[in-house]
C-alpha cells in the first residue's frame, strides 16, 4: 500500500461518498427471472451473480422451478401492478460491472486508472415451450486482452454475442404423458441438452461465470508484449506459458479455458438423479468458433453429488475429466491437453465456501520443445463469501498457480484477495478490493505487482 497514489485515494473517497447518493432513490428493479416469477433476487442468489441452493436447482432444471413445467411466462399470474410490466422484462436482464478505479503498486510501472465499468452484458433468457429454453448474452467488454500471432497480444473492445448463447432441450418426457401412478419420474431431472456457445462449468460445484471478485484487467504495451496478465481464478486458467490456439493465436496464461471457459462452442448434456448429476459433452476447443481447424472435438465428463438440506446447510462435490484433443498449439505442433480436477462447495447459513483444484497435462509436444517445456500445471482457487449484513458481503479468495510451459518464461502465481461489497439495493453493489501478490514480485507478467486496489460497481437489472 506504500506506493498508493494520493489521487486514487481521493477518488476512492469521492466515489464512496457520492455514488450512493445518486443511486439510493432509484426504483427497485429486479432482473428477469425474479420479475417473471415474482421473487426477490435473494430467492435464487446469495447476491447476484452467485447462486444459492435454490438458484442452483432452478438453473439445473433448465431455468425452471424444479418439479414444475415452464409456461409461467404465458400463464403468468396477474398480481397487481406487476402485470402491467411488459412481458419483455420477464426475459431480459442486464449486468454492468467493472472497476471504476484501479491502482497497481510494487510492479513496473506502478499504475492507476480511472475507467468506465468495462463490462456491459445483456441477457435474454426464457423458454419457447415447456421443454425448450434459451439463453442469449450480448456483451460489450472494453479493453480485454486477446491473443495475436507470434505470442503477441492486443487490448481491444469486444462487442457481440457474448460469452454464452445456447438453446437447452429437456428430453425428459412430459409429466402428462406419464401414467399418474408411475413413480419413476420425480426424482430425475433431464436429461437436458445445451447446444451453442456454452459454459459447461455452470453445473460444476464452482462455476466460472459467477464471480463476486470479477477479473481484473491485464495490460499490453504498444509493441504487443503482455506486461501483466488478467487476474482470474487460477484454477480455471490455461496455466501454460507459450501456448496458442489451434489457429495460432496466443493464449493468455490466466485465460479461463477448456471445461472452465466462460463460453465456447459445444454440446452439453446433464442429468440429475436424486442427489447425483452426470454431465458429459463435447467442445470444439479453445476459441475454435464454429469451424475448428483440426476438426477434432474435446470430450468431457463431470459428476457431481449434492448433499445437505437441513440445518441451513448444503453443499456439493464434483469431479471432472476433460480431454483436449489436438486442442492447442505449442510452436507449430498441435498438442493434446488433459485436464482433471475437483471442486467443492459448502453453504451454511450466510457463509458460502467453495474451491476448485485443477491439474493439467500436455502431451504430443514436438521433440525439440519437450526438453524446455514443463508439461504439467496445477491451479487452485478457494473462496469464502459471507453476507455480513443485509448490505455487506465480504469475500476472501486465494489463487495459486503452479504454471507449466516454456521454462524460460514460466513463473508461479499466488494471490490473496479481500473484497467488501456494499449493496445499496439487492441488485446494485459497490465494491472495494485489495489483491496482494503473496508470492514473489518480478517482471514476469504473472508476478508484476505487489498490491492492487480496485473499486467499482456491479449492477444487475
Amino acid at each position: 500500500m506504500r506506493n498508493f497514489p494520493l489521487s486514487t485515494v481521493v477518488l476512492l473517497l469521492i466515489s464512496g461518498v457520492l455514488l450512493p447518493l445518486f443511486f439510493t432513490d432509484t426504483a427497485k428493479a429486479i432482473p428477469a427471472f425474479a420479475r417473471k416469477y415474482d421473487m426477490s433476487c435473494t430467492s435464487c442468489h446469495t447476491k447476484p451473480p452467485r447462486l444459492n441452493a435454490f438458484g442452483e436447482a432452478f438453473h439445473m432444471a433448465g431455468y425452471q422451478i424444479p418439479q414444475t413445467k415452464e409456461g409461467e411466462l404465458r400463464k403468468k399470474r396477474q398480481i397487481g401492478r406487476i402485470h402491467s410490466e411488459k412481458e419483455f422484462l420477464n426475459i431480459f436482464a442486464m449486468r454492468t460491472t467493472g472497476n471504476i478505479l484501479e491502482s497497481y503498486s510494487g510492479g513496473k510501472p506502478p499504475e492507476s486508472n480511472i475507467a468506465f465499468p468495462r463490462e456491459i452484458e445483456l441477457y435474454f433468457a426464457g423458454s419457447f415451450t415447456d421443454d425448450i429454453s434459451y439463453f442469449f448474452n450480448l456483451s460489450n467488454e472494453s479493453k480485454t486482452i486477446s491473443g495475436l500471432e507470434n505470442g503477441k497480444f492486443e487490448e481491444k473492445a469486444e462487442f457481440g454475442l457474448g460469452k454464452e448463447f445456447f438453446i437447452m432441450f429437456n428430453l425428459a418426457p412430459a409429466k402428462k404423458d406419464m401414467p399418474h401412478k408411475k413413480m419413476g419420474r420425480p426424482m430425475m431431472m433431464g436429461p437436458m441438452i445445451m447446444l451453442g456457445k456454452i459454459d459447461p462449468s455452470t453445473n460444476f460445484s464452482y462455476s466460472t461465470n459467477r464471480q463476486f471478485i470479477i477479473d481484473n484487467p491485464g495490460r499490453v504495451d504498444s509493441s504487443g508484449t503482455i506486461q501483466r496478465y488478467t487476474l482470474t481464478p487460477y484454477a480455471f486458467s490455461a496455466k501454460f506459458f507459450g501456448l496458442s490456439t489451434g489457429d495460432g493465436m496466443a493464449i493468455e496464461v490466466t485465460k479461463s479455458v477448456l471445461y472452465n471457459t466462460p463460453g465456447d462452442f459445444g454440446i452439453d448434456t446433464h442429468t440429475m438423479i436424486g442427489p447425483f448429476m452426470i454431465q458429459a459433452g463435447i467442445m470444439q476447443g479453445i476459441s475454435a468458433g464454429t469451424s475448428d481447424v483440426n476438426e477434432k472435438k474435446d470430450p468431457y465428463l463431470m459428476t457431481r453429488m449434492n448433499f445437505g438440506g437441513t440445518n441451513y446447510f448444503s453443499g456439493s462435490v464434483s469431479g471432472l475429466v476433460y480431454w483436449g484433443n489436438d486442442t492447442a498449439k505449442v510452436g507449430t505442433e498441435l498438442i493434446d491437453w488433459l485436464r482433471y480436477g475437483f471442486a467443492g462447495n459448502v453453504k451454511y447459513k450466510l457463509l458460502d465456501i467453495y474451491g476448485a483444484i485443477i491439474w493439467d497435462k500436455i502431451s504430443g509436444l514436438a521433440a525439440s520443445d519437450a526438453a524446455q517445456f514443463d508439461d504439467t500445471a496445477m491451479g487452485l482457487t478457494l473462496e469464502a463469501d459471507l453476507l455480513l449484513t443485509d448490505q455487506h458481503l465480504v469475500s476472501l479468495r486465494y489463487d495459486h498457480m503452479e504454471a507449466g510451459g516454456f521454462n524460460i518464461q514460466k513463473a508461479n502465481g499466488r494471490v490473496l484477495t479481500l473484497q467488501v461489497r456494499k449493496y445499496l439495493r439487492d441488485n446494485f453493489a459497490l465494491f472495494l478490493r485489495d489483491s496482494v501478490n503473496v508470492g514473489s514480485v518480478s517482471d514476469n507478467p504473472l508476478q508484476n505487482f505487489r498490491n492492487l486496489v480496485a473499486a467499482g460497481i456491479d449492477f444487475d437489472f
Partner: protein
Amino acid sequence: MHLNKMQMKKWGLFVFVTLLFITAQVGSQEMDHSKMNMDDTSTSEAAPDMKTEDNAMSVMRGKMIYDMSCFLCHGKNGEGDGPASRFIGPYSHPRPNRFTSGVFKFRSTESGELPMLTDLMRTIREGIPGYMPSFRNLGEDGIKDVALYITEAFIQEELPTTTTIKYAKHVGPYTYSAESAWRGGLLYKIMKCNECHGDDGKAGRMDLKDDRQIMVHPIDLTRQETFGNGTSHEDIYRTIMTGLDGTPMPGYADSFVGEEESAWDLVHFILSLQGR
C-alpha cells in the same frame, strides 16, 4: 491420441449413448430406493383414517416433489431450515415456514388454528410474491399430493375441514362504493390499524418482531403486489378476519362478530388506498 474424423464421431456417439443408458439405469435404482424408504417410515400411521391406498400413494408422490423442490427452502424435515432459506430472509421477515411449529400465516381458520388443506393448496398454487414461486404447474393433483405430505410428515395432526369464521356476503350497502370505503376509513382508525400501518397505510412501525424474533415490517397497504395472502377482495377479507399467525398482524374475527359485513368496508378502504 490422433483419431480421424470418422472414428471421432463414432466414439463420441458411443460415449453419449452409454451415458444416457447409465443415467437411466441409475435413475430407476434410485427410485426403488426411495420407494423402500417410504415403506419403512409408513407415515400414514399418524392419521389412521387416511390410510387408504390412494392417500398413501398421494403422500408418497408428495414426498418426491417436496424432496426435489420444497426442501431447498423449507428444509428436509420441514423445519424451515433449507439451504436457501437464510438468503430469503437474511435479516428480516419472512423466512420459509417451519411446518413443524404448527403456526401458519395463511389460513381461513381462526387465529391459532391449523390451516385447512385447501389453504395449504392455495399457498402452494399461488406462491408468495417475492418469496416463494407459484407451483401451479404441478397441477391440482401434484399440489394436493405435496400438501398432504406436509400434513402427514410435518404437521402430524388432522387439519380442520371447516372454519368458524363467517364469510359474510358482499351485498347491499357492502358492495364496493365510495361510502363503504369511507366507513372503512373510520374503522381503520377506530380499530387502530393505523398504529401499525400508519395513517396513510404506507408508513409502518419499525419495532415489530415475528415469533422467531426476526424484524418484521407491517406491509405497505397501498402496494398490493406485496400482499402474501392474496389480493382479491375475498383474500383481503380473509386476512383481516384471520390475521397472520406468527406475525404481529392480529386476526379481527372476534371484533366483527355479528357484524361481519362491516369487514367489507375495511377491505374497500384498503382497495381505495390502492386506487382500485
